């Protein structure tokens, strides 16, 4: 993809890059809304509103928040919650490396703030925009802030709605429903599908041997290594 992105074919940067970033992100940003509502509703069953919101502000990563909130509700050990969510978040390193390499002239002091705005959505929008024009830090900030604001509002709204709705409405099932949606988004080709299925099977098989917290981690790591090995063997 880099090959056809020569400077000569790029359009010049637009005049108000921040606003342009906001505009380019609004549609995909709104797709975050149901996840935010669901996260808030599920988390509010066991956490006070302040904590539900604090997690959205400081972690700002939907899938990890979902998993952390539900593992907390199940009373899982903190260390296993951290390891599981870290594995889930490893893809942030890839996205961040890709954004960092392409965004130039970011003031050093602002780097942590910019890094905090990296999400699947802001990443996708920014990389897509980079394909046909020069995109600077301002565009990315506009994009990231759009997702950030939608996420904060929707998770607080979800917490508020969720705490008023009784268990009999099946709110607890917002969690598995979200996992199902996220899985469909992450599993895009044969190798991710095969590895995910293997991890699910291994996790259940390992449960009697290593218990119900470490089986998820062990199954994931092993299935991931298996996938790398399988792909290398097939192509090499």
């Amino acid at each position, binding site marked *: 993809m880099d090959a056809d992105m020569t400077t000569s074919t790029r359009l010049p940067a637009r005049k108000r890059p921040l606003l342009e970033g906001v505009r380019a992100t609004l549609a995909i940003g709104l797709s975050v809304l149901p996840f935010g509502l669901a996260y808030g509703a599920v988390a509010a069953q066991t956490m006070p509103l302040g*904590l539900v919101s604090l997690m959205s502000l400081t972690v700002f990563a939907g899938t990890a928040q979902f998993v952390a909130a539900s593992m907390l509700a199940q009373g899982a050990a903190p260390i296993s919650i951290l390891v599981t969510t870290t594995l889930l978040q490893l893809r942030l390193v890839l996205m961040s490396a890709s954004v960092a390499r392409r965004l130039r002239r970011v003031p050093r002091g602002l780097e942590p703030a910019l890094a905090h705005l990296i999400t699947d959505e802001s990443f996708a929008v920014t990389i897509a925009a980079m394909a046909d024009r020069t995109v600077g830090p301002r565009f990315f900030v506009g994009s990231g802030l759009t997702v950030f604001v939608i996420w904060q509002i929707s998770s607080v709204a979800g917490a508020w709605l969720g705490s008023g709705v009784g268990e009999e409405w099946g709110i607890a099932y917002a969690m598995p429903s979200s996992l199902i949606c996220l899985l469909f988004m992450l599993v895009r080709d044969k190798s991710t599908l095969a590895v995910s299925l293997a*991890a699910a099977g291994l996790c259940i098989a390992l449960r009697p041997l290593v218990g119900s917290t470490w089986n998820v981690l062990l199954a994931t790591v092993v299935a991931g290594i298996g996938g790398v090995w399988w792909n290398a063997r097939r192509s090499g």
Partner: protein
Amino acid sequence: MERTALWVTLALAAVTLALRYIPFATMARLSLPDWAEEWLRLVPGAVLAAMLAQTLLYPDGQTLPPWRNAYLLAAGPAFLVAWRSRSVVATMLVGVGSYALLSRLLVL
């Protein structure tokens, strides 16, 4: 519980910021070998699938026969809708609705 949740939240925030910021801080120096990039790409879906399998088969840590397990049964319609519609809203409504209905029917 609340205290644990607070600490987990703060630790999770620190880890997440590190994962997001390290590439910015190291920029050019960070270039991962292909197998590592491949592994990082495969792992998130695997975590979700493993968690989902465990959540559906052992809700609340119990073992239930599949036909009495509302969690597992409600996943059928939810999967179908997610696959056909790719809509988050539709999947959640169908998932939550099926679960509410099934958990009531199965108590009887």
